[in-house]
C-alpha cells in the first residue's frame, strides 16, 4: 500500500517540479542574455509610439513613453532575479550564523536576540522595510538590504531551532555524560540537519522577496524610474490604466508565474524531505480466494447481535480493494460478554467499527449481515445508523486520552449526547451527566464534570468514556481494548467496573482485546480471530482448558504465568500476514507447526456451539495450557 502511494505521489510531484523548474531556468537564461534577447533598449523612449497595443513591431505594446514593454519585461526579469537572490543571500548570511551562535551560547545572548527578533517580527514587514529604507534611502540595492535584514529573522529562528533540537539528541547528551565536548559533536551534526529546512526556507524567501520587491518598487521605494522592473512597470500601468489596461498584464503575469514556480518547487521540496526516496515495488494483486459461509443461520430469540458471513474490504491507494475481514459469523446473547481476541492486525477493531457503520470512507461491507436486536444494519442509511449509535450500541475506545475531545469539558461531552439523543434540557442533561460520572466511580463528580480531558488521569478519563457510552443505556457495548492503554493496577479496576455496570445496566459486551488474561477474566465466550477470519470460538473455560486451533494454543502458551518462572517464554514465530498477502488456504499455516499439504486449500469453520477452522483440530492434541 505504501509503495503504491509513493509512486503516484512521485508522479504528481514530478508533474509540478518539471514545469516549475523549466520556467525558472528559462528566466535565468533570459535574464543573463537580456541584451541579446530583448528586441529594443528598455530605456529608449519614442513618444510618437506611446501606449500602443501589441503589434508585430512591439509584441507586448509600448508604455506611456513609447518604450517596448517586452524589452522592459525581460530586463525587469533580470532585476527580479538579481534582487531576490541578493536579499535572500543577505538574509542567509545574517540569519544563519547568528542563529547558530545564539543556539550554542544560549542564556543571555539567546534571550536578548530573540526578544529583538520578536520585536522586529511584531512590526508589519513592509513597515520594517520602509523604516530601513528611510535610514538607507530609496533604491533597489538598499531596498534589498532592507528585505534581507527583515527575512534574516526567519533564518535566524530556523538555525537556532536546529541547534536546540540537536542539543536534545541522545548522542549529544551521551557525549556530555562521558565528558566529551558536545559542541564538536553538535557541529558535525548541524550541517546535514540544517540543509533540508534551509533549502525550503530559501525558496519561500525568494518568493516572498520577489513579491516585496515588486511592492516596494511599485510605491517608488525600490527600483527608481526610469529603470525597468516589474514593480515600476505596474506603477506605470496603474497610472495609465484608463488609457491602456493591457499594460498591467505582462508584468503582473510575470510576477505570478515566477512566484508560483518558486513556491511550487518549495512545496515539492518540503514534501520530499523526510519522505525519503520511494522504492518502487509492484503491488501484489490478491489472488487468494475466501471461504464463503456454508450455512446461513438466523438470529436466535435471545441474540442481541448476530453477524453472518461478514466481509469487509478497504481501498488501497491505487484504487483496488482488498478484504480485511472474510466470512465472519458470531452472535452475542443478551447480557453476555463475548471476547474478540487475536494479535494486532487481525481485524478485531474493524469488526467493532463495522457494527457501528464507522469503517470510514476507505472501506465498506461487501458481504454478510449484521443484525442488531432484530434489525438489519448493513442496509441502513447514515441517518438511520445515527439513530442506532449511542442508543442501541455504543463503543469505548482504546486510548481514553485521545477518545475524549480536548476542547470540551468531560461533563459537556456526556451532556451533549443526552441532549441530542434523549432530548433532555441543558440542566437535566448536566445533572444526569454528573450522576453518571458518580456511577462510574469518580469522586467529587460535580467538580470533575467541569474538568477538561487533559486534567484527568488515564483511568479516570476511561471511566468518563464508559459513562458517556452508557449514557443512553445501549443494549450492546463494544469495548475496544479498553484497558490496554492503562496502568496494570488501573486495568483491574476498570474490568471490575465493566462487570458492575453490566449487572446494573444489563447490556451485552463485545470485548475486543489482545490480552488473553483479560479475556479469561471478563468474558463468557471467546472468539479468536486471525488474519481477518474467525479461527476458533468456544466458552471461555473450554477454550482455556482445551484449545483446538494451533493459533489459540500458541496465544495461550505465550501468556506469562506468575507461578511459572521458567524462561524463555514461548512465542509464536513470525507475524500476522498483511491482508494483501493472505494465502488461499489456512492463513496461519506459515506459522503453524502442524501444517500439511492439505492446509493449502480453503478451510471452513466446523462445529456448532464451539467452532474451529482447522482440518487437523480433531487429530492433534494441543494440550491444556492452564
Amino acid at each position, binding site marked *: 500500500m505504501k509503495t503504491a502511494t509513493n509512486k503516484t505521489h512521485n508522479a504528481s510531484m514530478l508533474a509540478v517540479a518539471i514545469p516549475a523548474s523549466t520556467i525558472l531556468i528559462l528566466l535565468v537564461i533570459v535574464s543573463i542574455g537580456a541584451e541579446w534577447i530583448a528586441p529594443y533598449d528598455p530605456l529608449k523612449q519614442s513618444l510618437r509610439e506611446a501606449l500602443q497595443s501589441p503589434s508585430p513591431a512591439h509584441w507586448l505594446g509600448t508604455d506611456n513613453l513609447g518604450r517596448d514593454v517586452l524589452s522592459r519585461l525581460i530586463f525587469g526579469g533580470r532585476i527580479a532575479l538579481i534582487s531576490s537572490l541578493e536579499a535572500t543571500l543577505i538574509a542567509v548570511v545574517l540569519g544563519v550564523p547568528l542563529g547558530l551562535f545564539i543556539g550554542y551560547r544560549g542564556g543571555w545572548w539567546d534571550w536578548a536576540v530573540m*526578544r529583538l527578533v520578536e520585536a522586529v517580527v511584531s512590526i508589519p514587514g513592509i513597515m520594517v522595510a520602509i523604516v530601513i529604507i528611510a535610514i538607507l534611502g530609496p533604491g533597489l540595492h538598499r531596498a534589498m538590504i532592507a528585505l534581507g535584514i527583515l527575512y534574516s529573522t526567519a533564518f535566524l529562528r530556523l538555525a537556532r531551532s536546529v541547534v536546540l533540537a540537536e542539543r536534545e539528541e541522545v548522542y549529544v547528551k551521551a557525549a556530555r555524560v562521558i565528558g566529551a565536548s558536545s559542541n564538536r559533536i553538535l557541529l558535525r551534526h548541524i550541517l546535514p540537519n540544517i540543509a533540508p529546512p534551509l533549502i525550503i526556507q530559501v525558496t519561500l524567501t525568494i518568493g516572498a522577496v520577489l513579491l516585496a520587491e515588486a511592492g516596494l518598487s511599485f510605491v517608488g521605494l525600490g527600483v527608481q524610474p526610469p529603470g525597468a522592473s516589474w514593480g515600476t512597470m*505596474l506603477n506605470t500601468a496603474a497610472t495609465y490604466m484608463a488609457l491602456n489596461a493591457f499594460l498591467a498584464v505582462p508584468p503582473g503575469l510575470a510576477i505570478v508565474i515566477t512566484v508560483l514556480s518558486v*513556491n511550487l518547487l518549495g512545496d515539492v521540496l518540503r514534501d520530499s524531505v523526510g519522505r525519503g526516496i520511494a522504492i518502487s515495488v509492484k503491488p501484489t494483486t490478491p489472488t487468494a480466494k475466501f471461504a464463503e459461509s456454508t450455512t446461513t443461520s438466523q438470529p436466535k430469540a435471545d441474540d442481541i447481535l448476530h453477524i453472518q458471513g461478514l466481509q469487509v474490504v478497504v481501498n488501497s491507494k491505487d484504487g483496488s480493494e482488498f478484504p480485511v475481514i472474510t466470512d465472519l459469523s458470531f452472535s452475542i446473547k443478551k447480557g453476555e460478554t463475548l471476547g474478540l481476541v487475536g494479535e494486532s492486525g487481525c481485524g478485531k477493531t474493524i469488526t467493532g*467499527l463495522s457494527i457501528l457503520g464507522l469503517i470510514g470512507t476507505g472501506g465498506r461491507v461487501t458481504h454478510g449481515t449484521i443484525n442488531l436486536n432484530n434489525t438489519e444494519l448493513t442496509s441502513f442509511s447514515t441517518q438511520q445508523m445515527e439513530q442506532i449509535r449511542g442508543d442501541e450500541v455504543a463503543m469505548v475506545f482504546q486510548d481514553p486520552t485521545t477518545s475524549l*475531545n480536548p476542547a470540551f469539558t468531560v461533563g459537556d461531552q456526556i451532556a451533549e449526547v443526552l441532549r441530542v*439523543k434523549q432530548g433532555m434540557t441543558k440542566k437535566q442533561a448536566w445533572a444526569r451527566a454528573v450522576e453518571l460520572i458518580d456511577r462510574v466511580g469518580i469522586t467529587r463528580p460535580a467538580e470533575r464534570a467541569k474538568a477538561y480531558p487533559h486534567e484527568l488521569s488515564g483511568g479516570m478519563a476511561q471511566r468518563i468514556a464508559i459513562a458517556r457510552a452508557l449514557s443512553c443505556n445501549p443494549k450492546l457495548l463494544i469495548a475496544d481494548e479498553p484497558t490496554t492503554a492503562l496502568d496494570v493496577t488501573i486495568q483491574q479496576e476498570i474490568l471490575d467496573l465493566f462487570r458492575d455496570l453490566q449487572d446494573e445496566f444489563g447490556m451485552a459486551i463485545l470485548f475486543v482485546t489482545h490480552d488473553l488474561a483479560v479475556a479469561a477474566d471478563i468474558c463468557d465466550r471467546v472468539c479468536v480471530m486471525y488474519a481477518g477470519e474467525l479461527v476458533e470460538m468456544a466458552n471461555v473455560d473450554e477454550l482455556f482448558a482445551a484449545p483446538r486451533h494451533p493459533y489459540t494454543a500458541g496465544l495461550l502458551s505465550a501468556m506469562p504465568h506468575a507461578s511459572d518462572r521458567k524462561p524463555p517464554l514461548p512465542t509464536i514465530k513470525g507475524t500476522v500476514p498483511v491482508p494483501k498477502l493472505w494465502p488461499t488456504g489456512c492463513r496461519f499455516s506459515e506459522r503453524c507447526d502442524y501444517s500439511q499439504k492439505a492446509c493449502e486449500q480453503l478451510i471452513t469453520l466446523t462445529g456448532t456451539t464451539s467452532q474451529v477452522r482447522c482440518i487437523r483440530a480433531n487429530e492433534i492434541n494441543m494440550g491444556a495450557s492452564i
Partner: protein
Amino acid sequence: MLRLIGQRLISLIPLLFIVSVLTFSFTALLPGDPVDLIIGDEGTAEQYEMVRERLGMNVPIVTRYFQWLGRAAQGDLGTSFFNSVPVMDAVMQRLPVTISLTAVSALIAVIVGMAAGIAAALNPRSWIDRLATFGATLGQAIPNFWFGILLVAFFAVSLRWFPATGFTPISTSPWEWLRSVTLPALALGLSSSAAIARQVRSAMVGVLQQDYIRAARAQGLSRRRVVFKHVLKNALIPVVAVLSFQITILLGGALIVEQVFAINGLGSLAISAVRQQDIPMIQGIVLVSVFIVVAIQLTTDMIYGFLNPKARPS
C-alpha cells in the same frame, strides 16, 4: 482568563521597550543631519543652533530617549519636521482609513479562507479540494497590488460598479464606505484567504482523523454536528494562531494597496515621510502600528485561550 491577559501583558513589556528603543534610535542612525534638512541650504549658524535647541538635540541621547518616551506615553509624538502638524493628529487622521481597510480584508480572508478550507477538508481529493488547493497556491503568488489593479480595471473602469479611487469614511455614508472599501479589501485579503484556507484544510484533515471524532460519531452525533462543533473548535486553534500573524501582514499590505486606490491612509503618510526623512512622523507611524499589532495579538490570544483549554494557565 484574567490571568492569561495579565501574563500576556507582562510578557509584552520587554517587547514594547525594545520596539521603542529601535524606533527612537532611527534618529541616530539616519544619515545626514536632520537640522540641515529642516533649515535647508541657506540656514545661518544661529538658525542651526535654534533648531537644534528646539529639537532637544543638545542633551545626551539617553535623556532624550526618556523625554521622548514620556511624551509618547502621554500621546505626544512630536511634530512633523515639514509642516509642523502634530504627528499624533496626522496619524490619527489617517489611521481609521487603514484600520477599516485592514479589518474588512481580514473579515474577507477569514470567511473565504474558512469556507474554502472546510469544503476542501470535507471532500479530500475531490474536485473541490483540488480547486481550493490550486486557488490557495495561486492566491499566494498574486501580488495584492496587481490584483487591485485588475479589480479596478474590470469593476471600476469597465463596469463602473465601484469607484476606482478614494475612500469615504463610514461616518459620512455607510453605503459609500462599503463601495469604496470593497475592491481594496478584496485585493488585500486575497493572499491571506489563501494562507488561511491552507491552514484550515490541514488542521481539519488532522482533526478529522482523531479518535475523539470517531468516538463522537460512535455516540450517534450527526456528521454535521460533529464537523461544525467537535472538529471546528479544535481545527480553529492553529488557525487562530496564524490569524494574528496574517492581520499583521494585512496591515503592512494595506500600505501598498492604498496606493493603487489613491486612498489617503497610513501608507501614503509613511511613504512621503520616508521620502522627506520626516523622523518624528516615521517614529509615530511605527509606534502606533506596533500598538495596533500588539492589541490584535492580545485579542487573538484571548480567542486562543477560549478555544484551547490547554493554553489556559491553571
